[in-house]
């Protein structure tokens, strides 16, 4: 039995079915002309093709929930454009094509646990943990004596993800990173 999202349930990240295809909501805004009926403007990203569509729903209209399964899986290895993950209970392995990784491939660490989204038995996305701890593989040395507040420099972590870090952070140090919104430095991690 299909279940539905009402316009008041709309949130970024909900997965819905439109014209038979699965989408994730990436934007929603309530709009109501002063003398008219209320609508919610949305942007929806196709979970398979990545194409973004814009749709506007009237209050009272609803969207079918996409039956997406999220499986906790461990990263195993990369082979060309394919990334392989293993279910650590069933030992089943799933390969996810680069186009469905959505940038998450840059954060893959050995044996990192992620959520693999599966729709109709096809992997259609990977969600990273919100926070990861990773060693800085490359960054320029900080400039001694520079105490300017808010000054940052780029640092490379994992498989090429770049985050802005404060000047006192050095190559080889382990940092805690928020992987949402494109990666954000949180703090150094001390042993």
């Amino acid at each position, binding site marked *: 039995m299909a279940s539905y999202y009402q316009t008041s349930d709309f949130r970024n990240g909900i997965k819905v079915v439109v014209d038979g295809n699965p989408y994730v909501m990436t934007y929603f805004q309530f709009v109501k*002309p002063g003398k008219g009926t209320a609508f919610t403007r949305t942007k929806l990203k196709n979970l398979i093709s990545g194409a973004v569509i814009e749709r*506007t729903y009237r209050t009272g209209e609803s969207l079918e929930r996409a039956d997406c399964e999220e499986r906790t899986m461990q990263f195993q290895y990369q082979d060309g454009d394919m990334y392989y993950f293993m279910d650590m209970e069933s030992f089943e392995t799933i390969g996810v094509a680069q186009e469905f990784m959505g940038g998450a491939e840059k954060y893959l660490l050995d044996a990192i646990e992620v959520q693999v989204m599966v729709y109709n038995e096809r992997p259609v996305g990977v969600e990273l943990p919100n926070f990861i701890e990773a060693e800085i593989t490359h960054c320029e040395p900080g400039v001694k004596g520079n105490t300017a507040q808010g000054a940052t420099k780029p640092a490379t972590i994992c498989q090429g993800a770049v985050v802005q870090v404060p000047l006192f952070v050095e190559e080889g140090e382990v940092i805690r990173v928020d992987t949402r919104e494109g990666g954000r430095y949180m703090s150094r991690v001390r042993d």
Partner: protein
Amino acid sequence: MASPALEEHLEAFAVGGRFLHTSPEFALKRVLAMGLPRIFSIGPCYRDEEWGPLHGAEFTMLEWYRLGCGYEGIADDLVRLLAKLGVPTPRRTTVEELLPARPEDPVEAQRAWVNDVEPKLIEPTLVFDYPADEAAFSEVRGPIAERFELYWQGVELANAFTELRDPKELRARWEKNNRARASAGRPPHPIDERLVDAVARHGRAGGIALGVDRLVMLLLDHSSIDQVRVCG
């Protein structure tokens, strides 16, 4: 207030069998009927079921009314106010010009408006002459309602009318909206008899309601009215 609104799609907060006002319009029209020729009000209004960066349960509305003119006179007032605030003189257009292939179904017409028209009204724009079925409180002339709105940066900022003075017509619109509310499972908005009486007695008048939070938001280059309110 004894009644929160005439419009079908306005929800009020009910308090002890009465309502927080969704706009000061009803009270101001009673003042117009007393014969005061130029009146205004600025203060909080309350609307339920509206949220997001451009809406709030409480917001600030400026309304003014002028006897002896229609919506054109109010448009002149508005242009002078905007000039004092440093807003460029709005261009003038009509609903017909902006949405020539307006869908017949009223919901689809509004969907087309919020999708295809509103986001493009970036420069300050006065949109005149709404279809008669979107008249609300305005005087109707043939297929056209004497109503205009101000848009800027895709944001609806103000709504103005040549005020309806026919009590029978007002009552008919109110009853029609209440039938629509009933079929949508909504409680009716009670007809405010003191308002019906007032519109029958005041002279020809124009009036306007302007969203102050939204205007201040745009003047200060913000994207949410929460950023210009002390408490969101």
